[in-house]
Structure formats: C-alpha cells, structure tokens
C-alpha cells in the first residue's frame, strides 16, 4: 500500500476518528447502541453507504457543477440508503425494526456530507474508497465499544447470549438498568473521549 492510501485508511481509525475527534454522526452513533447486534448492522450499513457514495462522487467529481453539488450528493446518498434499507427489510427484518428510523437518518449523517465535501471531491476513486471504509470503521469501532459496555452492564448479555452466570444473580448481582437508558450512551462516549485524549495529548482542547 502506498503512503497516501495508508493515511487515508488508518487515520480515521484513531487520530481523526469521525465520532470522538471530528464529532460527526453522533445522532445515530448513540441511539443504536443499546445492544451489540443493531450496532453491528448499523456499522455495516454505514461502511457500505459511505464507501460507495465516496466512490460515486469521486468518479463524477469533475462533471458536478459546484453550485448544485449538495443536492447531487444528497440524491446519491439517499439512493444508496434506500437500497440498504430495502436489503435489510428483506433479509433481517427484526434488526431493521429495532433500528427503526435510524437507517433512514444515515442520509443526514454528517459523516457522509463531511467526507464527501472534504475528501471525495478532491481525490481519486481508490483513495476515496479507502477513506470511506476507514471512516466507516472508525465510526463503527466507537459504536461497538459503546454497545459492548451498555449490553454487558445493562442486560448481562452479548449478542443476545447471556454471559453473566446465573450464580452471580443468585448472589444478588443486578443488571444496571441505567445503562439501557439514553443518557448513559452520552456518558459512555464521554469516558471513551477521556481515555482517548489522555493517551493522545495533542488532541486536548485548551
């Protein structure tokens, strides 16, 4: 892999993570993280939409007039999201029910607009593809970490399988119902930011 493609792919995973550093796409990142399974499906959907829309926009970047580029981007993204939505409804109806409106909201996910504007409009298709996959994975990483803690502490399960042994419950261990409620998602993300920024001092705000 050349240096440029390495940067495009690896930077979004930590140093320029879309969620905790660029603070994009928070809406869906928090809402789908009560369980691991929807978080995982959401990650896959975002990676697919982001990579494909990056490639498409990068291929037609020289023919789009600048004045209408936002509309063009919205239409491309919306078409891709509709496809993902239909595929999910066909093959995994349960999860698509759980994700409810949040698949549709990928259209207005700021990560997409941000990457299309900042990267795909100025770079070739292969680099844009890597950038899309990298950002999608960086986003998904945070989602999966948050969902892991919330499902483990909130329901004592992982991917729907019980991992906290029954004997613990008999000894008086209780699931922490707080973790399932929306506010705890915010606080979990804040803890991730805390750990991440104390390891990467250059990211701290003064």
């Amino acid at each position, binding site marked *: 892999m050349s240096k440029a493609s390495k940067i495009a792919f690896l930077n979004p995973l930590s140093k320029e993570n879309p969620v905790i550093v660029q603070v994009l796409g928070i*809406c869906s990142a*928090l809402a789908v993280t009560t369980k691991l399974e929807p978080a995982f499906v959401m990650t896959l959907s975002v990676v697919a939409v982001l990579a494909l829309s990056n490639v498409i926009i990068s291929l037609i970047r020289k023919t789009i007039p600048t004045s209408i580029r936002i509309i063009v981007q*919205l239409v491309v993204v919306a078409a891709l999201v509709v496809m993902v939505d239909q595929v999910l409804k066909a093959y995994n109806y349960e999860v698509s029910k759980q994700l409810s*409106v949040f698949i549709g909201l990928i259209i*207005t996910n700021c990560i997409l607009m941000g990457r299309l504007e900042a990267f795909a409009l100025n770079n070739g298709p292969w680099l844009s593809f890597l950038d899309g996959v990298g950002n999608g994975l960086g986003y998904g990483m945070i989602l999966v970490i948050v969902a892991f803690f919330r499902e483990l502490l909130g329901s004592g399960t992982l991917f729907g399988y019980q991992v906290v042994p029954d004997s613990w419950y008999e000894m008086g261990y209780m699931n922490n119902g707080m973790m399932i*409620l*929306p506010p705890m998602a*915010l606080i979990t993300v804040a803890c991730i930011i805390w750990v991440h920024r104390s390891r990467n001092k250059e990211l*701290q705000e003064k």
Partner: protein
Amino acid sequence: MEDLNLFIRSIFIDNMIFAYFLGMCSFLAVSKNVKTSFGLGIAVLFVLIVSLPITWALNEYVLQPGALSWLGPEYASTDLSFLGLIMFIAVIAALVQIIEMVVEKYAPSLYNSLGIFLPLIAVNCAILGAVLFMQQRDFDSAWTATVYGAGSGIGWLLAITCIAAIREKLEYSDVPAPLKGIGITFIITGLMGIAFMSFLGIKL
C-alpha cells in the same frame, strides 16, 4: 386534549435530543453561546412547523400503499412507500431553500440573525427524524402532525439554549484537560437527559 398531550410529550418526554439524540451534530457544534443557539433553535422550530404538514400530506396522498386511489381505481394497488426517504429529503431541502428566500425578502433582520444556519438545517437530523417518526406513528390529521412538529421544535430549542447557557458558565470551571470542550459537553448532556427523564409518565 389529545393534541395538548402530544405537544407536552414531544417537548419534555420524547425530547429530540435527550431521548433520540437527533440533531446532535449541530447541537454540539453551535452551542457555544446562547445567542446563536437561540437563533438556530428558532430556525429549526420554524422549518419543523412548516415541513411536517407538507410531508404528512405527501405521505397520505402519494406514498402510502393505496394512497394514490384518488387518481382512479386502477391506482388503488400502487405502493410507492420505498420512495419515501428520497421524497422527504428532497421536500425538506426544497422547503429550506424556499423559506430562506422568503425570509430574506420579507424579514431581512431575521435573515441576518439566522445567517448560515438556515441552509444547514436541510441536513439536520432532527427534521428528517421528526418526519420519519410522523410517518411511523401514522398521525391522522395534518393538524396533529403540525402540533408534533411544534412540540419537537420547542423541545430542541429548549435543549440547545440550556446547554449553551451551561457551557458559557463552564468556561470558568476547572475541567480535567482530556475532557475539556467536547467531553464535558457530552457528560452534561447526559446529566440533563437524566433530569428530563423525571418527566416520564406525566399524562394530561
């Protein structure tokens, strides 16, 4: 009465930010001072009130399965619901554009105070989110949809103004270095969310 209940619920209990995290991106980016936050909040409220009845009509008379039957019996079995997302986002984007032009012409002072926020609202998830929830909940009249839009908008306005006020005060506090800026904002939003949950179960 029913509508009043929905109105109060959508402000406090189903609050766009604290219960569904919708519109978080602009919420976090803009909430640095009260004045701009209030301006953005008003703009969102405005767009929500206008766009919900229009998308409701679109959903009722074009998109739902069998909605086209007013064109004639041969259309009774048409189902265009898969086009929903594209239609909604196009309508919202167009509406924002029209509202921007009208406001610029007839209320230049409001236009200047809203500034760049108006065009950005097209990609604010709170708007598309409210429209999708409206579709999911199947409201039975355009009026109910408008009430829901107004409630969600006021809830959003309330949330962003409060957080901006807290962040202004926070400038003078001694926050751990890695949490400064975005981290502490997340925690405060979480705590406010817990506070708002005490409204849970209120019924009028």
